[in-house]
């Protein structure tokens, strides 16, 4: 196929249009041609579902005049007979950067961060460029156009793929004959948004995808405010955005998670996004369907990994292997689910790879009509151009393909691709087929010549009296060329023959012998014989091979290692004879039964019975409430928005990662609820995500129902960038003194904002101020990362001044020094059991901190801030016994009831009490003991981890890996391209992590 395409690269195009009527002509006489072209006797696919057999298509001036069976053909018509051939509307790629060069990456030799925008007169953020027009950067690229044309495309939409708001894109016909005046169908047809910053500016904000999301939201608020005439100054970016507001919006998301994020914004603002997906939508089909969005789907499929070296093979993770195996099903599954989508060549190295991958998608179940729609009517509709492109309805552009048969059959060839009435020849449809067996007579010798292969890529086999003769045959421009090395020649020399292809049954031509003497030759085609039979047999076995449907591994929830084959369900479970740590006034109950029913703790007592319950003997074992981690950074794709010193506008809820294996690992350590906190890159951080670890559910389903609102604040070395290197010394604040002023400034402004808002006067909606006002209005709680006593004391005083309370100090390593003041303020402490010595500000951190604060009546929790520690927080709780002598019963509360209290969810979780959520853990041993293992972890009556299933999982992963590795090795032996093994280096986040996943 590749060679064939190369052969076709020189596409012949014939201009049928004329210069614009009002333009002067300086090179000759002014001409016009009003001729018609008719294509007769073809199977015309006017649209994917409307087919005319033996019909006529009549075009003029680049547009379809009519089509049908009884078309009257005007006299001035060129007629082309397409007997046996098909006509299809040519394809549309609505997502490309065709003809648009990406701007150069900005450089910064000083390495100092840039916080302000470079552009003046535009929005405050350089990455917001709705004023950008793809049209301005557009330069028709004939070479790329040819690639598209060869792949069957007639029209592409293209835009500048740079920035978060990227401005407008244009729609252009791949007309290589005429100028932009003809081929540009619409200069501003679409508007574009992404989560990715512009490469041409180094402005720091946003540093994270949640920051990008917040920024997009704020821009929409500001555009509305600006449109109402509220701004005192001009903003060319907002003006441009308002001007293009009616255009379809294409959001480059590029992954399932980002698809859902885009959809979330769209829903908030009542917008309809067309989402450019990532090809991984099959991992969450229901969520994708629920977005109600239309999609643009790439068909870039992973090559198999080279797993021949077992050492390297061991580095490839199961989810990557699965993605190789499963992703070709993506288009088919989307189609079956009823998701509206267009297909795109985007993400492919070249449009040349498109057909191969499309055929693969069809082999993996994509319906052919759906495929055609995804390449014609759907993109046309999404672009708002259904009357011009995508079908061969009257009045549409004459953009169509002439093919040898049904378009998505493997053997089908595209002969011609007409764009705006201009013919592009891909394969000469009038080419003579000379395949067959010949008697070749040259210089008195008679050879058997067998011509096979494909038209355009012929193969020859030459025999002289059963001896093989090395030979080569080719066909070009209506001529046949043969050269061969005659037998018994000492040197490798060639006889060269050529002949015009008038009659394929009888070739007559001239040539040159090895000695240079000219000769004439002839080749007579033999009657059909046994050769053909063999061909037929070959064909049969080939078909058979193709028919074997591919083996696709089943999806799991989530679709990674340790995912569930079917989602686990709520059960009624009766634990018998356990030691139950109630965390209530009952204390620790021995030999007690616990009944779990309807997701709740239903009964606690002795000799309980329930006829429908699954009974679990818990003799010698312990039951506790699920562990709650007040400070976690797992299950998120971003931790810090570090671009500003205040980022209340961002929320971790936007970036929850439900597929993170650390969720499962935490469950294996008895953890059921976590607060995913923003990091500590700035004094005012982002909002938290409070989630339950319901492994297998979507990110939205993980979020705690009716959750209280939280935000992360931070103090100390991290916020003043002490350990960020020598270039990060310009962002305010750089000292603890400055930190106080950041808070005072923002709360003062929030207070004024809130007063204005409540006054009923018009105001500019500011997400950051809205969030801070929630704090002032006691609707949102602060968890503040803190170390030394001075800053802890300071923040409490700032809160006092603005009449609210700090809810929780997290880390709070010097809390023991101001425990009395904390108690008075009413703030809780969520600390490390024993961390210290990693920074200067933890010099006086002591493991007795928890015990001391507890002794002063403060609600104390131990948290992890660490993916490793979080899976054994019970052991950390035990350290409160060791360091400071907290009772065992109280120590366990440090990781269960107390964090529940700090998170204001102790009405539902944190203790074993009738009526509370059945978030419980069955331990093999005393839960504070280093020897204790979580044997079963339940959330709302659903078992998300248990030791037996885990053992099966480990075996299952091994056997699935093995199966996939064997499949890849088979592919490799077939000669498929393979790629080097990859392993995503997992990123483990802490408070100070600045990277994104």
């Amino acid at each position, binding site marked *: 196929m590749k060679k064939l395409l190369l052969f076709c690269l020189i596409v012949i195009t014939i201009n049928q249009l004329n210069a614009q009527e009002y333009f002067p002509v300086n090179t000759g006489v002014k001409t016009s041609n009003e001729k018609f072209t008719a294509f007769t006797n073809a199977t015309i696919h006017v649209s994917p579902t409307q087919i005319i057999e033996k019909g006529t298509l009549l075009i003029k001036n680049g547009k379809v005049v009519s089509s049908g069976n009884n078309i009257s053909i005007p006299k001035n018509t060129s007629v082309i007979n397409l007997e046996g051939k098909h006509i299809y509307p040519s394809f549309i790629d609505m997502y490309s950067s065709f003809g648009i060069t990406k701007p150069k990456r900005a450089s910064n030799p000083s390495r100092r961060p840039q916080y302000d925008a470079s552009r003046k007169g535009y929005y405050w953020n350089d990455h917001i460029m709705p004023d950008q027009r793809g049209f301005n950067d557009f330069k028709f690229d004939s070479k790329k156009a040819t690639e598209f044309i060869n792949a069957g495309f007639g029209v592409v939409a293209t835009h500048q793929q740079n920035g978060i708001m990227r401005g407008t894109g244009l729609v252009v016909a791949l007309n290589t004959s005429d100028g932009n005046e003809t081929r540009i169908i619409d200069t501003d047809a679409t508007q574009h948004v992404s989560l990715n910053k512009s490469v041409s500016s180094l402005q720091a904000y946003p540093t994270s995808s949640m920051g990008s999301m917040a920024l997009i939201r704020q821009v929409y608020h500001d555009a509305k405010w600006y449109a109402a005439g509220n701004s005192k100054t001009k903003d060319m970016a907002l003006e441009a955005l308002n001007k293009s507001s009616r255009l379809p919006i294409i959001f480059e998301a590029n992954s399932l998670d980002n698809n859902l994020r885009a959809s979330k914004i769209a829903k908030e603002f009542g917008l309809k996004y067309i989402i450019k997906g990532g090809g991984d939508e099959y991992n969450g089909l229901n969520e994708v369907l629920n977005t109600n969005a239309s999609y643009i789907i790439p068909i870039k499929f992973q090559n198999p990994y080279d797993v021949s070296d077992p*050492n*390297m093979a061991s*580095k490839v*993770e*199961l*989810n990557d292997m699965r993605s190789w195996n499963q992703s070709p099903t993506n288009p088919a599954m989307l189609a079956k689910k009823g998701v509206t989508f267009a297909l795109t060549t985007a993400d492919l190295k070249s449009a040349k790879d498109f057909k191969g991958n499309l055929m693969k998608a069809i082999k993996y179940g994509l319906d052919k009509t759906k495929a055609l729609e995804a390449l014609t009517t759907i993109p046309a509709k999404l672009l708002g151009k259904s009357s011009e492109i995508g079908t061969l309805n009257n009045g549409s552009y004459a953009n169509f393909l002439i093919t040898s048969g049904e378009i998505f059959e493997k053997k089908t060839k595209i002969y011609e691709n007409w764009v705006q009435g201009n013919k592009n020849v891909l394969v000469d449809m009038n080419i003579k087929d000379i395949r067959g067996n010949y008697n070749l007579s040259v210089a008195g010798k008679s050879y058997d010549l067998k011509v096979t292969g494909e038209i355009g890529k012929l193969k020859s086999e030459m025999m002289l009296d059963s001896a093989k003769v090395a030979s080569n045959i080719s066909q070009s421009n209506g001529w046949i060329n043969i050269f061969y090395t005659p037998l018994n020649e000492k040197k490798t020399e060639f006889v060269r023959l050529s002949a015009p292809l008038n009659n394929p049954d009888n070739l007559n031509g001239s040539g040159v012998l090895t000695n240079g003497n000219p000769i004439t030759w002839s080749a007579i085609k033999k009657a059909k014989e046994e050769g053909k039979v063999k061909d037929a047999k070959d064909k049969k076995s080939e078909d058979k091979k193709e028919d074997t449907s591919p083996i696709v591994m089943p999806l799991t929830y989530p679709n990674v*290692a*340790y995912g569930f084959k079917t989602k686990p369900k709520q059960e009624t479970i009766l634990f018998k004879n356990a030691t139950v740590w109630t965390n209530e006034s009952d204390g620790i109950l021995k030999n007690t039964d616990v009944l779990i029913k309807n997701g709740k703790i239903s009964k606690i007592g002795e000799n309980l019975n329930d006829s429908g319950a699954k009974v679990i003997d818990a003799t010698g074992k312990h039951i506790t409430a699920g562990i709650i981690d007040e400070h976690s950074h797992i299950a998120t794709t971003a931790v810090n928005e570090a671009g500003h010193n205040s980022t209340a506008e961002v929320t971790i809820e936007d970036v929850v990662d439900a597929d993170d*294996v650390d969720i499962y*690992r935490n469950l*294996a350590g008895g953890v059921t609820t976590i607060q995913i906190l923003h990091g500590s890159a700035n004094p005012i951080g982002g909002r938290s995500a409070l989630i339950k670890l319901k492994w297998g559910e979507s990110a939205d389903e993980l979020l705690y129902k009716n959750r209280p609102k939280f935000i992360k604040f931070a103090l100390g*070395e991290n916020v003043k960038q*002490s*350990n960020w290197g020598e270039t990060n010394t310009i962002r305010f604040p750089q000292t603890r003194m400055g930190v106080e002023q950041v808070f005072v400034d923002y709360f003062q402004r929030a207070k004024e904002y809130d007063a204005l808002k409540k006054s009923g006067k018009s105001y500019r909606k500011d997400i950051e101020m809205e969030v801070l006002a929630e704090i002032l209005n006691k609707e949102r709680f602060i968890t503040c990362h803190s170390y030394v006593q001075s800053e802890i004391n300071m923040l409490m005083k700032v809160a006092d001044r603005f009449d609210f309370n700090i809810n929780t100090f997290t880390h709070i390593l010097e809390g*023991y*020094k101001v*425990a*009395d003041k904390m108690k008075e303020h009413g703030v809780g402490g969520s600390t490390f059991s*024993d*961390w*210290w*010595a*990693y*920074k*200067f500000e*933890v*010099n*006086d951190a*002591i493991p*007795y901190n928890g*015990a*001391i604060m507890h*002794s002063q009546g403060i609600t104390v929790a131990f948290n992890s801030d660490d*993916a*490793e*520690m979080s*899976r054994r927080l019970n*052991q950390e709780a*035990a*350290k409160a*016994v*060791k360091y*400071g002598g907290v009772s065992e019963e109280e*120590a366990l509360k440090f990781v269960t009831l107390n964090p529940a209290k700090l998170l204001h969810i102790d009405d539902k979780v944190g203790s074993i009490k009738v009526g509370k959520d059945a978030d419980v853990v069955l331990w093999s041993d005393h839960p*504070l*003991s*280093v*020897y204790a*293992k979580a044997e079963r972890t339940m959330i709302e009556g659903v078992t998300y981890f248990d030791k037996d299933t*885990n053992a099966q999982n*480990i075996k299952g*992963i091994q056997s699935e*890996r093995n199966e996939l590795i064997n499949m890849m090795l088979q592919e490799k032996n077939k000669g498929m391209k393979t790629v*080097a*093994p*990859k*392993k*995503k*280096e*997992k990123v483990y986040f802490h408070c100070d992590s600045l990277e994104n996943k």
Partner: protein
Amino acid sequence: MLVSIGITAQQTPAPKQTTDYTIEGATAHLGNGEVIENSLLMFSNGKITFVGKAEMKIGRRGTIIDAKGKHLYPGFIAANSTSGLVEVDAVRASNDIRETGTMLPHIRSIIAYNTESKVTESLRPNGVLMAQVTPRGGTISGTSSVVQFDAWNWEDAAIRVDDGIHINWPSRTSFGRPWRGEESGPKSNKEYKKTVDEVRTMMNDAKSYLKGSKSPKNIPLESLAGLFDGSKTLYAHGGGEKEITDIIAFSEELGIDKLVIVHGAEADKVADLLVAKNIPVLIDRAHRLPSSSDEDVHLPYKTAKNLIDKGVVVGIGIEGQMERMNSRNLPFYAGTYAAYGIGKEEALKLITSNTAKILGIDDKVGTLEVGKDATLFISEGDALDMRTNILTDAFIQGRKINLETHQTKLWKRYMNKYNNQ
């Protein structure tokens, strides 16, 4: 309670043992797998003089400590540690771990060991009383020494000076650096052979040098001598199956007698070879994450079992996240290994007798046996379990050490503040 804070660092070292001690009634965990219930242990002049049952009718000597219901252990040893080389991780000025350069066998950790470290001090109340202090830079990192934690200066601290040379054995797999425009993911390390050859060349150079006149003097080559005369151990830090196999062949080729594998992530795959060649492994601490998403979530807890079941001698090395401050959790790493298949006494060996053997100090420490240093402690309960690891008494070479620390002082100071309010 009056305590002075401020620049005072570690507790003042205890004076040499002058009175004898008798510890009676404890459950003695000898460190070699044996347990004596209701035990009797006596020590004089820094050495253990008696270990047996309390029922023994034998004269009790010196101060008698009634340890009924309590547990007696040999002092724990943190191998592959950097205790005393860094005080505050984020303060560069306090960091003495990595020398610049690649071939640094002459770099000696012992002279940088800070006996005044407050971090090291905080290990003692958890029973961690000794450590191997290890440099980490370069390919050949330098020479480690073993110290005890009650000393005025590094000379006092040393249990074994220059016990071995550490090498960061290259990995056969390298990882792409996307920030340098490389494709991410693992690939075959093209530098592997070259790096190994460089080390080999240096070792061979050392052998020739040592046979000759040694003039002019070559300091790095001279420092390698101990590897060839058996006085120093080669600690090869590496992990993969193929790498370990290569290391073993390399040491044999060069006539290096004492080899220890450090980390050994895939050591279980070459366990038979390790056993046959009598090569021990210093495994990583149990509290770490699996190396890939597919891996058994509990695999890090099972490393010890997987090797011990096959007969490999195993100790625990402490290297990892925040390792200085986390060294006090050494007993709990052993405890976690105990929970996952090896039992408490076997787990205890990982931080006592096995480590002592591996570090070549088993003639002095690692077990409660007559003739060995009285470096030991009494705990209220099981010292491998955090809730019962509560030390009442500890001795280093017979000296009764103070278990107060910078941290306990702050604890008491602030509790006093609140109690007096």
